Each structure stands twice: as structure tokens, then as C-alpha cells.
């Protein structure tokens, strides 16, 4: 270690005239460990992943790995199952993230602002509990809720309503609901924070001017928290795009491929069908979908009010 110190220290102790370049270099120094770690543990796997996506690597059945150019991507676009997975991913994201988590989270946050302290604490802790539960536990809980002999059907029976085999007839709806159940707490927390930042005077002024609840919400609350909405949408969407454990535990992408979103499709190709190369190419495409969403949201957030 001492030798390492000496060798490493050598360039920094050589006297040099302090200039702007040198200053910048020195300012970067404290960040060096973090940068090195990021390059090593984040950059490394990504570069390796990009490399694999252009090969025909297999988990079993072939001893050599060859470079195959764009074959994996061509295959993906010609693959009916892949297109099915893209559509389902969009449906899943739209339903559970944009409509479900986001709207419900905002609604809850708005309601909780008016609620009394005990109600607020109670609701808050229940909703957050769903978020704290590990993904796989949540998956099994909701599997138990939706399955044929599950809680939901028991409730429906008790109410005298016809029961359904949810995981079989409407699997994508069931997993979307599961994701809403699990992810709403996050939106609620973000919106609670944003709503409490709105100065009371403005709302009161509007109230004095005769604006009703809905109008106040539409003209004052929403514009004032639009940055939070943007951030929340982006985080939610990216998180939902990569949901795997929840769907895997509930339906494994089935029946057929009726709930096979991109992450499940990717796992299926890479590990069940042993096509690591193809699976990785799909992972890259998923990354691309995520990047597209982020660009849109970032642009929305950049515009000034």
C-alpha cells in the first residue's frame, strides 16, 4: 500500500503553475472514486451487455460465441411474440403507471391534505406498507388475491356477483392492478410533498375570488406542481417498464403470452430458451423504449410555466 501511495502521489506533488485546467482537475478529484466505481460497476456491465447483444451467445447447446451483427435485432422485429410483448408493455405502462399510480397517487395526496391528522397517518402508513413490502411478496399476495379460489372471488361471491378467473381471463389487467397497488404510495409521497409547497395565500385568494374546488385544482394546484408531475411520471414509467418479479410471480407471462411484457419476454428468451444473445438484444431495445419516454418527459419539464 505504501508503494501504491508513492506512485500514485508522484504526479500530484510535482509543482506546476496553478491554472484553470489544473483547478478543474483538482475539483474533479473528490469525485474520482465515485466515477471509477460507476465506470467499473455500471459502465462495465452495460458495455458487456451491448457486446453480447450482437453475438449468438447461448446458455447451453453451443460452445462458441460468434459475432452476428444485427441478426438479433432483425429477429426481434420479425418476431410476433416480441411485438406482442411491446404492445403489452405499453398497455401495462399506460394502465398501471400513467392512469393508475399517477392519478390515484395525486388523488390520495389531495384527499389526505384535507383529512384530519389521525386519518392521514393511518392512510399514509397503510399505503406505504404496500410499497415497503418486497416485490416478490407483493407478487404472491396479489396472486392469492386474484387466483380462482382467492380473496377477490370470495368477496364477489359474498356480494352475490359472478366470480371470474382473473389471472386466466384478464391477466394483463390483474398484473396492472397489482402494480398500481404496489406503486401508488410512491406517487402519493411525491405529490404530498408538492402539494404542501403550494402557498396557502394563493389558494385562499382564488377562493375569495369565487373559484370552486375543481377550478382551483385545475388552475392553481396542477400548474404549480407540474414539475413534480413530470418527475413522478418519469420515475413511475421507468420503474413500471422494468417490472419483472411481480408479473413473474403472478402469471409467468401466461396464460399463453397474454401477460408477457418485455422484461418477462427477455427473461424467457435468455434463460428458458437459453438464447442469451437474443435476450440481451431485447434488453437493449427495452432500454431504448425507456430512453424515449425519458426524453419526452424531460422536454415537458424543461418548458417554463
Amino acid at each position, binding site marked *: 500500500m505504501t508503494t501504491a501511495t508513492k506512485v500514485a502521489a508522484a504526479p500530484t506533488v510535482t509543482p506546476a503553475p496553478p491554472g484553470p485546467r489544473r483547478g478543474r482537475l483538482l475539483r474533479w478529484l473528490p469525485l474520482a472514486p465515485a466515477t471509477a466505481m460507476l465506470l467499473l460497476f455500471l459502465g462495465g456491465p452495460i458495455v458487456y451487455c451491448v457486446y453480447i447483444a450482437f453475438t449468438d451467445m447461448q446458455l*447451453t*447447446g453451443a460452445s462458441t460465441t460468434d459475432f452476428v451483427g444485427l441478426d438479433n435485432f432483425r429477429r426481434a422485429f420479425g418476431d410476433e411474440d416480441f411485438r406482442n410483448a411491446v404492445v403489452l408493455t405499453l398497455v401495462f405502462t399506460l394502465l398501471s403507471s400513467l392512469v393508475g399510480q399517477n392519478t390515484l397517487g395525486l388523488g390520495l395526496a389531495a384527499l389526505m391534505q384535507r383529512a384530519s391528522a389521525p386519518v392521514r397517518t393511518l392512510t399514509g402508513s397503510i399505503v406505504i406498507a404496500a410499497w415497503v413490502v418486497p416485490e416478490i411478496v407483493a407478487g404472491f399476495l396479489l396472486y392469492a388475491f386474484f387466483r380462482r379460489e382467492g380473496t377477490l372471488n370470495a368477496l364477489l361471491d359474498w356480494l352475490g356477483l359472478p366470480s371470474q378467473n382473473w389471472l*386466466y381471463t384478464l391477466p394483463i389487467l390483474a398484473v396492472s392492478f397489482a402494480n398500481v397497488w404496489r406503486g401508488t404510495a410512491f406517487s402519493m409521497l411525491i405529490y404530498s410533498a408538492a402539494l404542501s409547497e403550494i402557498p396557502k395565500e394563493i389558494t385562499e385568494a382564488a377562493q375569495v375570488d369565487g373559484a370552486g374546488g375543481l377550478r382551483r385544482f385545475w388552475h392553481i394546484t396542477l400548474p404549480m406542481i407540474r414539475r413534480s408531475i413530470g418527475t413522478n411520471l418519469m420515475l413511475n414509467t421507468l420503474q413500471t417498464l422494468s417490472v419483472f418479479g411481480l408479473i413473474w410471480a403472478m402469471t409467468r407471462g401466461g396464460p399463453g403470452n397474454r401477460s408477457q411484457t418485455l422484461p418477462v419476454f427477455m427473461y424467457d428468451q435468455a434463460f428458458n430458451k437459453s438464447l442469451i444473445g437474443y435476450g440481451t438484444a431485447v434488453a437493449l431495445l427495452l432500454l431504448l423504449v425507456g430512453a424515449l419516454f425519458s426524453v419526452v418527459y424531460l422536454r415537458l419539464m424543461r418548458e417554463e410555466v
Partner: protein
Amino acid sequence: MRPTAPLILAATLTAAVGLTACGGGSGSDPDTVKVAYNRSTDNKIRFKDNHLAEVKKQFEKAHPGKKVKLIPIQAQDNDYATKVQQMMRSPKTAPDLVYEDTFRINSDIKAGYLRPLDDYLATWKSWDQFVDTAKAAAKAEDGKTYGVPDGTDTRGLWFNKEIFAKAGLPADWAPKNWDDVLDAARTIKKKVPGVIPLNVYTGKAPGETSVMQGFEMLLYGTGDAGAHPLYDPKAKKWVTGGKGFQDALTFLRTVYSEKLGPDISDALDPNVGTTVYSEWLPEGKLAIALDGSWLGQNWLKTGGKPWPEWSRTLGLAAMPTQHGQAPGKVSMSGGWTWAISAKSKNPDLAWKFIEQLQTKDNAVTWDVVDAQIAVRKDVARDPEYTSSMPGITFFTSLVTYTHYRPTTPVYPQVSTAIGEATEAATTGDSSPEKAAASYDDQLKSIADGATVAAGRG
């Protein structure tokens, strides 16, 4: 700021050095054999664990100073394979000894995960006791042998005689063709409501269970005797989904559309195999089960679902061919082998553990406790084996009619494609013709175009 900079740099360097060190350091201990195997997902079933623990004790006593480290992997078969394949990719994690399903072993051989055992087998006396089909089970296309099988299995129909009596069906039921099976199921549906008439595994989630116990038991009964409905070994080509393939899918569709089978969502549950032996059969909820020879093991007094008197309730019948064409009966066989990982640093010690597993006494004990069909002549003659369980003579007799799956590296991928075809046909998402056509497409891409139309094999 200046005096702290070298300190930080130094810290980064040491951290980096430290990390690389722990990355490369965990070599294997030359005195330890690491044994990876699959543990049943049913927590009450620990036959393999107990047997291996016993052999480990014997081994450590016979070889002082040597240790055996058992690495149980509790998972479904597909997940177990994925995990072990990933372990075998790196010398740091590769176990010395791996329990390999014969249907996957050729794929893993091709991937370079396993080590040929010919040098060891040449001087091993017990190898002569193995029947030829078993010796061939883990023989690769290169002519070398990569695994030592420890038993096999056959498949047939288990039926509940009490339900049959209520439905007016005979206790010595012996169907001659598929229609006999379906008719019996229809009779039961009509006369004994509330029970599941017939279970045939299907769909993707049960994995190889639905492909082999379900679909292939049908497919291999559609052709003439000696035909190869999946793979033509002479032409070295895969056979596309022809009439037999569609007929087998139609059978599945019939079972599930006429509601002769379990509820589709139950059938597509990955744990349906456990449900069949632990609930449906013992509780009298299922009349006919197309299933493996090993079911009885679960009902031993020491098993997961003790039901020692099962043989009074359950009868056994061979699965018939489609129209009763010769030889009239059909069965599929598989089995597992012990193989040595190519990246193992102690192959010699690993081999010694295989020898310990395959002393005659241990081989008999294993085949008995795990309800395996013996692959060694000395074991098959052993009275402890022949008297071990009701039905063992029946299932051993099916060995004459049995078929083995194609031993080519891409079989696991083909199996996945078959699973998808059965699921599409079972749920009615695709017609049998369309499911077979989409199987053909996948097959062409898996086999790189080396396919041949059915009927010419």
C-alpha cells in the same frame, strides 16, 4: 485540498486492488468435492437429500481428510438447469459434480460444460452392469460418455378404481386406443360429477413435465412402430409437425375443451405436478392420471403424502397407441445422470464420489427410495428392489415399449417450442393446425433449417 488528494487516490487504488483480489481469490479446495443437485420444491420430500447425506458420510469415512460439500438447489427443473448452467460457466462457481437430466445433458455437453468420463469408465467394473440404453443415455455425438445414469422411469395411466366402479367401468381397465381413454373420461364426467376425469399435462409452465408426460406420450403413439416422430436419427434432421403432431394437439384440445381435464388455469400452474400426487389422486378428486412411474414414492410412509394403501385404490394401465396400432402400448423414458463439470479442479475426487454413489448397495437403496426403474442388471435382480413397491413390475415391463427423447443438443429448445404449441392448442388461442405450423417455424430456426416433413421418417 492538495494534501488530501494523494490520500484519496491511494484509497481508490487500494480499494481497486482489494476488489480485484476478492474477485479472483476464491479457488476451490483440492480436498472438497462440490456436488450440485436439485432439491424438490415440496418441502416434505427429501429423499435425494437424505440419500446424498448418507453417501457423503460413507465417502468421508472411506477417504479421510476429504470433504463433500452438497449444494442443493431448490427449484423447478427449468430454473435448476439455468442456475447450474450459469454456475458451470465460471471456474469460481463451477461445482465438481452435477446432477444432469438426460434430456439436457447433450446440450450442456455441446456447450462444453462437462468432462468426458471414458478414462474412468474403462477401468470401472460396475459399468458392465448397466443396460445398453442407459449407457447410451449420456453418450454425446462425439462418441464419448459424459454421465453415469442412476435410474430411469416409464410412464402410464394411473386410475382410481373406486371412481371407476361408480361409473360402471372395469377395475382391470385396459384401453386399446385413444378413444377408449376419452370415452372412459366422458363416462366419468357424466356419472361421477365433481371429479376431474382425466389429467394430461400441458402448457409451458410445467416445463418438460407437460412435454414428456403429456404431449410425447401421445405423439409417440401416433406413428407406426419404430417411427421417429420428433427427430430422424438417420437423416439427422428434425421432423416438422405433421398429422401425428396435430392429432396429439387435438387430443389435448378435446380433453380441455370438453372439460374432461382439470380447469385450464390449474393445468397451466407450474406446480400442477405436485397437486396431482399430493391432492387430486389421494383425495379421490382425479379419476385417470397420465403420469410417471415414480408417483408411488410420494405415498410411502416416509413420503411427502403418506398413503401406503394406495395400491388398493389405484389401478395401472399402459397408455395405448392412437388407433391401437402395433405395438399397442407406448411409454417414454428419461432419467438423470451424474456428470463432472469441465471446469472442476478435482475431477478424480469427483469420480470417486460417483463410484461411492454407485456401489451396488447404494444403487439399490437409491432406486428404491426414489422409485426409480433400475438401469443396472444387478439392481434389477435384487429382491429389495423387486419387492420395493406395488407397480414396480408393471412399470419395469413398460421398458419394452418405451421411447427415449432425441439426444441432440437443441432438444431443450425444441421442448420449449412444443410446450408453447400445447399451451396455444389447450387454451384454444390457436387451432392445432396453426399451433403445429408455428412450431414448424420455430423448429426451422432452432435446427437451422435441418428439418424434414413428417411421414418420411
